[in-house]
């Protein structure tokens, strides 16, 4: 029995895509909320600076803190992306297991 690679690829894609979409929505939702908080805070730093409540040094420290927070958010998005890739590959492998094992006549994918 030969493998229909076109059908195999379609099955793998069908298994992987929903996983990728779910993770993308989750990451977008998280980043959107966190970046809004950071943007609001950057605006408040500017207001405090112009009102003379804080000096340049204080404003710089507060701004650097927001930059660090932004890097943390992006690192989370990177981590979620790795998880998404991990799950998508594993889902794609799982759906073709039966077909592949039947074709090669031994449990290539246990």
């Amino acid at each position, binding site marked *: 029995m030969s*493998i229909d*690679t076109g059908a*195999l*690829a379609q099955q*793998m894609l069908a298994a992987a895509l929903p996983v990728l979409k779910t993770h993308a929505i*989750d990451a977008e939702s*998280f980043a959107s909320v*966190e970046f809004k*908080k*950071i943007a*609001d*805070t950057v605006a*408040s*730093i500017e*207001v*405090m600076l112009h009102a003379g*409540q*804080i000096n340049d*040094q*204080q404003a710089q*420290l*507060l701004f*650097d*803190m*927001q930059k*660090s*927070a*932004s*890097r*943390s*958010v992006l*690192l*989370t998005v*990177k*981590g*979620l992306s*790795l*998880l998404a*890739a*991990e*799950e998508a*590959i*594993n*889902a794609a*492998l*799982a759906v*073709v*297991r*039966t077909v*592949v094992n039947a074709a*090669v006549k031994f449990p*290539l*994918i*246990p």
Partner: protein
Amino acid sequence: MALVWLAAMVQAGCTAKFIGDYDQSIDNGVSEVQQQAEVYFGKLKADPNTPYDPNFYNQINARMAALRTRAGILPQYPIIQKQIQELQGNLDRFQELDKITPRPVPIGVVTAAETAITVNVESILKLELALKRNTAPSLDEKNP
């Protein structure tokens, strides 16, 4: 081509693994750091004349050192390791800010610092939560 790729995956252990597993010590430790920080922010907001407290920073830095060590020894943990470094960096910046800010501390300063540190913490906890509920079971679990 597909078979070659599949064979490579099988040889690699059947499942893809790009990031480390959930770690309860990191999860709990980061939450404790946030609690400690929130108590200090609360004090400053309730009484803006609260003096700079070096003991708070000594305690929180000791906790952070333990977290850094833990993240450093966990396999496939470079992302959370970097996030812990970012959190430490922001605690250091806040300490400097706390030292140089005359009393009464403007509430906006506390709130801005609190937001940044909260985002640092939430970012780590979000990723840990995703690792915890990671639905990437082995092929055997998916196809028993």
